[in-house]
């Protein structure tokens, strides 16, 4: 599994070893090196990351009244394992404030997304966003390509592994999916009716995403696929056998956004409404419009986010980094979810401290599931949860929502 610019080796390591992998190893050591070697700051291996979130530090206070409160509650000194990560993300109960973001229809994502990743997401108690263009590319119920699961195959796989009332299925709708009426199809489908009744269904309106801004999705497809989906998408011939399929991003103004959110609330009672924004300069205005119209959560994908294909120039030069997105949304009124390059505890905890209510895993979930189809994502989540508990308790706090901006230091 390749994901240039993403710390694939680290994610694969966690997918194999789980919690064990959060402890450092000395170069050349196969075994755990903790206790056998000395470590300073681990150098960043990925110089491409544009945002300051990774460069920021989590800086706990020395004096911790919050820890005293926990001490009184427990009648003993609290430990990191006392951190309660259970949360509500975008209206769904989850084991920790993490969900799995929508993946593109790019084949690299689909190879792992098919069943393994969605099943593991369900077992880990994480909400799952299903999109983009899965319905258009792979069919709603009947498979458009025999080897690749349809939209409903994926939903069934996820729901089949969901335990209790944790998790939730969020269906993303892009412009092409709107033509196919994906939300209406799901909402009127008897198979999804129990989900509505249990409050486990959400719809995500997508305005754009991290790496691509609001330019619409792209994927490279072969001739056979191009012939099948050609009428639904703008298509560019690349060479003899391959085509570039693009999605129309959709036009939004403040009024259009507000009206669409209201229409979602009007048309789909009982369904959670998420709105996904690209890292644009006016995301505060857009976020306030979405929250004001009644969105349960606004999702902001930082410039580092994205799983699908797009032009290099967009990857390198488009959009605000996630730390700046969080800065511009400081003091926001509604629930904020963020995504983009999330895979380990420090970035997640910093995002939560800076105002996010939950974070989305994209590439990390794919890489982990591809590494181990049975337990890769589950182990990645276990490692992430352990790191989150360590970092949150280090700040003298015992729930993610107790984190605050004071816990993060950007330097200078």
């Amino acid at each position, binding site marked *: 599994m390749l994901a240039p610019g993403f710390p694939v080796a680290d994610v694969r390591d966690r997918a194999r070893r789980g919690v064990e992998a959060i402890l450092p190893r000395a170069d050349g050591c196969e075994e755990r090196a903790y206790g056998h070697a000395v470590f300073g700051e681990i150098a960043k291996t990925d110089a491409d990351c544009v945002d300051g979130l990774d460069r920021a530090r989590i800086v706990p206070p020395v004096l911790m009244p919050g820890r005293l409160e926990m001490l009184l509650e427990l009648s003993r000194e609290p430990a990191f394992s006392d951190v309660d990560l259970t949360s509500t993300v975008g209206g769904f109960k989850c084991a920790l404030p993490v969900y799995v973001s929508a993946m593109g229809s790019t084949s690299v994502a689909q190879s792992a997304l098919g069943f393994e990743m969605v099943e593991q997401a369900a077992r880990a108690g994480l909400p799952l966003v299903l999109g983009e263009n899965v319905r258009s590319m792979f069919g709603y119920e009947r498979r458009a390509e025999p080897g690749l699961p349809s939209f409903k195959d994926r939903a*069934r796989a996820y*729901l089949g592994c969901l335990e209790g009332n944790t998790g939730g299925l969020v269906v993303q*709708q892009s*412009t*092409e999916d*709107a*033509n196919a*009426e994906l*939300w*209406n*199809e799901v*909402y*009127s*489908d*008897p*198979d*999804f*009716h*129990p989900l*509505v*009744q249990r409050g486990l269904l959400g719809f995500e*309106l997508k305005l754009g995403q991290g790496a691509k801004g609001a330019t619409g999705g792209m994927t490279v497809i072969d001739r056979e696929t191009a012939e099948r989906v050609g*009428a639904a998408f703008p298509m560019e011939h690349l060479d003899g056998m391959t085509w570039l399929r693009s999605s*129309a991003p*959709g*036009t*939004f*103004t403040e*009024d*259009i956004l*507000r*009206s*669409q*959110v*209201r*229409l979602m*609330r*009007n*048309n*789909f*009672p009982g369904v959670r409404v998420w709105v996904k924004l690209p890292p644009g300069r006016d995301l505060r205005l857009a976020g306030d419009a979405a929250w004001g*119209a*009644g969105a349960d959560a606004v999702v902001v994908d930082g410039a580092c986010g994205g799983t699908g294909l797009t032009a290099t120039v967009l990857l390198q030069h488009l959009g605000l980094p996630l730390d700046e997105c969080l800065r511009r949304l400081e003091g926001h009124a509604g629930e904020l979810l963020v995504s983009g390059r999330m895979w380990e505890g420090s970035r997640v905890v910093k995002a939560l401290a800076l105002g996010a209510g939950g974070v989305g895993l994209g590439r990390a979930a794919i890489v982990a599931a591809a590494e181990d189809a049975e337990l890769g994502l589950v182990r990645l989540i276990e490692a992430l949860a352990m790191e989150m508990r360590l970092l949150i308790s280090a700040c003298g706090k015992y729930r993610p929502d107790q984190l605050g901006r004071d816990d993060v230091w950007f330097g200078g």
Partner: protein
Amino acid sequence: MEHAVAGAGDRRRPPDRSSADLTTPDVYLATAQMRATLRVQQEALHAARESLREAGFVELLPPLIGPVTDPGIRGSKQVDVRYYGHDYRLMTSAILYKQVALHAFPKIFLVAPNVRLEPLDTAYTGRHLAEFVQLDVEFASTRYADALTLLEDLLVDIVEHVKRSCTQELADLGRELRVPQRPFAREIHADVVARLQRIGRSQEGSAEIRWDEEEALSREAGEPFFICEYPKGSRGFYDREDPARPGVLLDFDLVLPGGHGEVASGGEREYEYARLVTRMRETGEDPAKYGWYLDAARRGIRASCGFGLGIERLTRYLVGADAVWKVRAFPKIPGMLLP
């Protein structure tokens, strides 16, 4: 996944899937009650046609399929049809065609069959069917108040005719039908919402009136009444937004008394190209698929008002039934596989 049809437990509840009630139309159609109901329905349609023709309306035949249809259908799915290798849809309503049909005559109507794959919850409202018929009316006008007056006259004409022509049927059905008093009350949506919120009901200001709330309002009412001026975001793109009051739609519902609820929806229409495209985006629609309609709008379509009146809902009211599936032959209850 389960195929649950959990019931509300009242008389409107559809019979079990395995029940012979609806899967054997040869049996239920032969009952005296159904015969009386269908005669009332026939007379209601006759009266509606007479009333509209006298008012200068011309009846057109309804389209059944098209490249696009009405997207303003709360949470329900359109039915796709493969049409010579292209995706067409069964009509959910003929609204787009009605507007363009005004090029033929300034006043038109259709008796139009529609199909909407409604969410399962609607199986228990007593007033939703996946297949139903609308009396679809449209006329050139710039005031939705004209449509209210027309609708008042139409309903009164229908009730008077049915009372005259179906005395025996109404008696057999135990229905004492009263001619509504004109003018019907005209309430503003925002006022209705405020009233509901004052008594602790969970009605959102930016949404359509919820089905249970609307039924409660209908039960309290002694006469039909209009709820006017819905907020933008609660209706299809074609309901005209008041240029002087952004966010307010110049539209309405007609609500019948006695718990029968909404029987007709209508309003002034958007007809200018740029406004239509913008409103389409506000409802999440891609203007590209509305090519023929937008081309017509570029060339110019008339300012108009209109409404769709549900024939099964009207019949339900006329005969005093508690569910629409009891008043038509071959009903399709949402989620149920019926002949």
